[in-house]
């Protein structure tokens, strides 16, 4: 993961609350099997509206999203974070984030920082009055600066450290593998295993449509459905 200490880019005021992950990226775009290429899917339903903020030239190249409360609610889809990153966003500021979204952001190096609602309002006012104004998000100083407005941002210490160091979680955890092995030795035998598979009793299933007879198949047999 890339290290994140400070970023400066055009601020985008998104004056909406409860921007759920279905708005950030609708389910039809989740069928891809790659981790990139989701920029066209970001806010797909709203992108058709000429008045939508990202359709205004001054904001189109934005990289700091300033959103209303409860950003990222709903599904666990990390595609929401990928879509924001692929579009070019480096940071999202909101007064409240959904837990899973905030967690996913941290894993992917997208800064999701909490800013007090009245400070969000201050940022919105600057960004709406002077479209294209840049916001500097400083993880070291824990501030967001936009013209003469400087507001504190909150990020938990652990996420901040990981972002600033650009650390990969899996690597960190595998450093404690001996402790995982010890834990596994203590697990009780009643805890379930998925393998070998056990099943519910078999059932007779009637074909939904007539099974075609294959020429040459022995009498009494039919092709496997």
């Amino acid at each position, binding site marked *: 993961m890339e290290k994140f200490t400070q970023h400066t880019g055009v601020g985008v005021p998104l004056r909406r609350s409860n921007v759920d992950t279905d708005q950030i990226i609708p389910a039809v775009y989740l069928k891809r*099997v790659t981790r990139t290429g989701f920029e066209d899917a970001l806010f797909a339903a709203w992108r058709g509206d000429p008045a939508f903020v990202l359709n205004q030239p001054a904001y189109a190249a934005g990289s700091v999203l300033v959103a209303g409360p409860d950003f990222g609610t709903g599904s666990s889809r990390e595609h929401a974070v990928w879509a924001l990153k692929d579009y070019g966003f480096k940071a999202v500021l909101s007064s409240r984030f959904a837990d899973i979204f905030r967690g996913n952001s941290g894993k992917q190096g997208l800064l999701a920082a909490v800013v007090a609602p009245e400070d969000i309002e201050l940022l919105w006012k600057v960004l709406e009055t002077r479209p294209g104004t840049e916001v500097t998000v400083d993880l070291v100083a824990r501030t967001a600066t936009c013209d003469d407005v400087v507001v504190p941002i909150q990020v938990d210490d652990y996420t901040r450290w990981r972002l600033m160091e650009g650390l990969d979680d899996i690597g960190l955890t595998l450093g404690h593998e001996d402790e995982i092995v010890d834990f596994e030795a203590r697990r009780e035998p009643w805890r379930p295993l998925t393998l070998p598979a056990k099943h519910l009793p078999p059932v007779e299933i009637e074909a939904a449509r007539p099974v075609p007879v294959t020429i040459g198949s022995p009498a009494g047999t039919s092709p496997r459905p």
Partner: protein
Amino acid sequence: MAGTLAEKVWDAHIVRRGADGAPDLLYIDLHLVHEVTSPQAFEGLRLAGRPVRRPDLTIATEDHNTPTLDIDRPIADTTSRTQIQTLRNNAVEFGIRLHSLGDADQGIVHVVGPQLGLTMPGLTVVCGDSHTSTHGAFGALAFGIGTSEVEHVLATQTLPLNPFKTMAITVDGDLKPGTTAKDIILAVIARIGTGGGQGYVLEYRGEAIRSLSMEARMTICNMSIEAGARAGMIAPDETTFEYLKGRPHAPEGADWDAAVEYWRTLRSDDDAVFDAEVVLDADDLEPFVTWGTNPGQGLPLSATVPVPEQITDPGDRLAAERAIEYMGLTPGMPLRDIAVDTVFIGSCTNGRIEDLRSVAQVIEGKHKAESLRVLVVPGSARVRLQAEAEGLDRIFKDFGAEWRNAGCSMCLGMNPDQLAPGERSASTSNRNFEGRQGKGGRTHLVSPLVAAATAIRGTLSSVADLGPDAAREPELAHA
């Protein structure tokens, strides 16, 4: 020290305690996988040359993308087909058990786990799906994760996590006939809001919860995420043990006895302290429906669409204005006057056998309103087979409903089961977000009983609206 249910399960899974603000490293007992949130995780393992640490604690199903018609034919949508084929390839490559389309154990991941007896009290359960909270109905700590975390669990069978706060939601009293678990949870979300549970594990308790079946408890825990909570839990009891005993993966013999002895300790101590508490009375509950575009925008069916000018909080007022416009409603109109085009019965919230039985009881011998289509999508292939063994499919077909194969279907419209722009549904699913069931689609979240009554009358209705005959069935109360 006295502890809550959630704290007890958490403490029993700490591999390594975090110091100085670092998260605890938690062991994961059961990892459920599906086709949508896993391809990039497997790709990550492949790139790093890492194996799946515990294939024997991992199980996969195909559910989000799968068609509900013609399931014996190649999937028509090529991107869906690729995603499902990718899961099949990954399952073979990494040695993971997969229940594919057409397999009798295929179905929505949150229906399949409990059905196989893999979901048990005291486990940690994760899945790359926010409705993993469903499994909390057994007294498991179960929560949704993102794809990076899916990769992390595949590689290490653990997750670094900061402890959650705890919230007790006590539901006293008894549900009235015609009201269900779905009405309880919609009322809870309307009360605390879509962000009210953020950072919390909700523990549902009280008389009304105790008297619910396991399936109804799953409906409640399922929608915990809709209140923003990571997980919902219900302490295990005799109902839980009875449901589990004899299921394919339930412990047997001495293991069963040891498990039950431990499971009985899984309850919040009398003097345990919760970070927040909410109390509701089930006696006051009516059938609940949503009018807006988030699950917290719900009201009793007898209410009217809110008038934004009367809402004092400016944020809520703006959200209500936007929702009413999107939903095509008139402020002040009775919710009962809302006519729908589609009734969807299914999903991980209400796609289990008891849900289908409760719908069948209401509609038996009747015909759907001419103006609408009715889709019945069982939560798993087993639920479908069970329903057919009971003759429920006949009741649905005679009613004029479409009887489909198992999957997530119209709950999120990743397969062809979608609403057209402007089309309106009464849906037993869990999210009424803009475009959730298809671009431009309008969703009203309802219970299976309200869905059934609505399908008969054509407008949002309760069973009581059907007249005295329909409301008399006493077993409807806990459906």
